[in-house]
């Protein structure tokens, strides 16, 4: 194992605020350890910038372990970078080589405007959830016993898999149409696979899809790019399930 670190050239999107025009700036970092995470490399750069009296690069992050969905970089043209099944914060520098030039940009989509540098506004995702991403049950101490409602393990597992979406937006950023279908279908699927979600299934899918369209996300043309870049392995199966839920709901709604 070579102990000598990597020297890298970074081409990073800088944009002062939502209304200003941004551009790519070039930075150099030296002696980057392969054991660092990508965001720790960014910390090194920021420390360097602050010491030089320059403004550090603003980027979103929080948990730094791949679960909060806050981090969101487009690295060398790929959402969350070159590794598979990970978020940007889980990406490690061992995926890069000494001398590399790395392009770092925000996720791009009409529905995700840039706020500053690499930080984007993903509140459109929340608004889609407000439209129907829930089961209408109030808090009370009198809900029926959890085991009164057995759920086949296979259904529960599938619902769980869909529910692991972290709302990062990589699917949108990777899609040439900037479609949010993978994200929306993950929530629709979770509930459509569970008996608790059945009662409101029709309204849920119709309302969530309607809100998705309002937010300016594009249409799905089945390119499958979203599934490839999704850090949580959310499957295209969910989109198929949502499409059939949507169809069922539209037909019965009209009838």
């Amino acid at each position, binding site marked *: 194992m070579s102990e000598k670190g990597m020297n890298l050239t970074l081409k990073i999107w800088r944009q*002062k*605020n939502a209304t200003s025009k941004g551009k790519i700036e070039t930075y150099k970092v030296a002696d980057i*350890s392969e*054991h*660092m*995470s990508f965001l*720790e490399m960014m*910390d090194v750069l920021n*420390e360097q910038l*602050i010491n030089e*009296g*320059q*403004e*550090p690069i*603003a980027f*979103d*992050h*929080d*948990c*730094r*372990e*791949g*679960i*909060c*969905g*806050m981090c969101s970089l487009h690295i060398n043209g790929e959402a969350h970078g070159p590794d598979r099944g*990970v978020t940007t914060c*889980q990406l*490690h520098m*061992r995926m890069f080589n000494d001398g590399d030039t790395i392009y770092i940009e925000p996720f791009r989509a009409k529905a995700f405007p840039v*706020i*500053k540098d690499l930080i984007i*506004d*993903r*509140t459109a*995702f*929340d608004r889609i*959830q*407000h*439209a129907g*991403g*829930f*089961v209408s*049950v*109030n*808090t*009370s*101490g009198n*809900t029926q016993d*959890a*085991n009164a409602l*057995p759920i086949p393990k296979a259904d*529960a*597992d599938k619902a*769980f898999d869909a*529910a*692991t979406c972290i*709302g990062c937006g990589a699917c949108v950023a990777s899609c040439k149409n900037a479609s949010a279908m993978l994200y929306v279908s993950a929530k629709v699927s*979770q509930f459509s696979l*569970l008996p608790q979600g059945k009662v409101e299934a029709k309204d849920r899918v119709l309302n969530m899809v309607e809100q998705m369209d309002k937010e300016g996300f594009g249409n799905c043309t089945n390119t499958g790019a979203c599934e490839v870049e999704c850090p949580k392995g959310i499957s295209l199966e969910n989109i198929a399930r949502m499409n059939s839920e949507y169809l069922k709901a539209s037909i019965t709604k009209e009838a």
Partner: protein
Amino acid sequence: MSVLDSKIPEGPIKDKWTNHKNKINVVNPANKRLIDVIVVGTGLAGGAAAASLAEMGYAVKAFCFQDSPRRAHSIAAQGGINAAKNYQNDGDSVYRLFYDTVKGGDYRGREANVYRLAEVSANIIDQCVAQGVPFAREYGGLLDNRSFGGVLVSRTFYAKGQTGQQLLLGAYSAMNRQIGKGKIKMYNRHEMLDVVVVDGKARGIIARNLITGSIERHSAHAVVVASGGYGNVFFLSTNAMGSNATAAWKIHKKGAFFANPCYTQIHPTCIPRSGDYQSKLTLMSESLRNDGRIWVPKNMEDVEAIRSGKKKPIDLSEDERDYYLERRYPAFGNLVPRDVASRAAKERCDAGYGVNQTGEAVFLDFASAIQRYGKEAATVNHEPNATKERIIELGAEVIKNKYGNLFQMYEKIVDQNPYKTPMMIYPAVHYTMGGIWVDYNLMTTIPGCYAAGEANFSDHGANRLGASALMQGLADGYFVLPYTIGDYLADEIRTGPIPTDSPEFDAAEKDVRGIIDTLMNIKGTKSVDHFHKQLGKVMWDNVGMARNAQGLEEAQTKIRQIREEFWKDLRIPGEANELNTELEKAIRVADFLELGELFAKDALHRNESCGGHFREESVELDGEQKGEAKRDDDNFKYVAAWEWTGDPGESKLHKEDLEFKDIELKTRSYK
């Protein structure tokens, strides 16, 4: 008499909560609409509280500093949530959960609160299932359980290694329903920077819009602070990067007492640190101790051979390994509580047996479990002649189903395959049992200001059992606060909207602006992280897993020095009236630099060992417990609640004596 009134209801412990609820004042539904409640924080505690209060009809305003309520730090919780359901028919009960929690907390929690927590625990699971939270299930379709440290029953509900995520998304969905109805107004990317107290009552907050930098006033009839724990005072911890103490510290400075700041949980199973650039530490869930066995080599030659790469851990035979937890604690083995497991790892590493380059790592080994599960699976599959490799393959599959995401996380960070070689782990700061003092109603010493979740000093005494933080957060948010807050708000129905143009709001806003201006104008030479790392090092070296009087005194002095330097030499580039991540961090670290000193002061004053607080001066000298932590009930059976007096070093101590009527005070033994 103490100024602290814990308001514990009268009567036998098992009736207290029911009686209290029956007697509590309620607000009629038509009046609830006229009452505003601010909830700071949208983790399990805040999210659950905001949703439930809005469902009841209150007008709720919720705040979080992330871009969405779904990203609160609770999302990262891995292993599970406890509840006294006794689905496994292994003798669990409300009483047993109560008992385990009090004992696990080393008899430093409040009995009545803990009992209530155990009592409502079952409701939490019912509520979450009704919301569509996809917990792990058995083949028969019923809910599955696992066991966690410090207990002998299996009462932990889980969703793979993503339990916190699923529970938080449940609370988030409940919030979304109310946001959609306009009952919750959500303020994302907002940071609360002060509480406003009018005529002695909490009446609102001052918050900074993190996108525009504007300073906003928000009023309400009550303020709930559910802002999480303060583990990041150590710089490195398993907490999210943004987790901070500011909301809690600001209310402390306005009159809310801060209780037991020194009670910190150092979690035994985290990925060891790898270099100075390290920004955070990653937890490997305690649930792994169900199937993982912890060991270091018996012989020093093997330690050296492993460190230098001449030997691999799997080269060592069984009798060359020291399964030190199984050796020292035969009854609980690898499932001793966290504080015990952490100290035992430190003991081995201090003795020179650490297995990595830094000498700060022990093994967590799944080979036996893979074998055991593999054989079971071969039998079930009718493969009597399964080869060794086939058995390992089958066993690894079972392990993957249980902990797949954790193993993946480990491999991505360490670049080693934990199915094939044991994980390396070491203790790290994880959770803070201390926090804002609250009475039985979760009200702080500021009337109308409540604290919930990890932010309060809570129910875990001096040590929290695994899978109990999620339980407490949701208990506070769904089942306790929505009732107890009514008792206070019943007197507010005639108050009318709280104006924000009062002198108190003016003054609070002026203070906040003053702090921001001062920070921006230091124009020194060093970054926020520079000071935060210095603070973290002092905390870890002197106020970490083992503490002594000299080290604690030194820590207080050093923290004061760092604080002085911070206010002289900090550099924040950019402006205050825009998105400025350095300014955000600076405000938080300024508070950590005060909290750290109080933390050390509290640790110094508590001259006993209890739970996560280990004083080297206080150990058992002989008998079966020789070398174990020694509690001193005669002198320290109380909650230490500190009152702000203008300087953290001069804070005033108030004591809430703890009474144990339903559980006998005993030496905690896991032997």
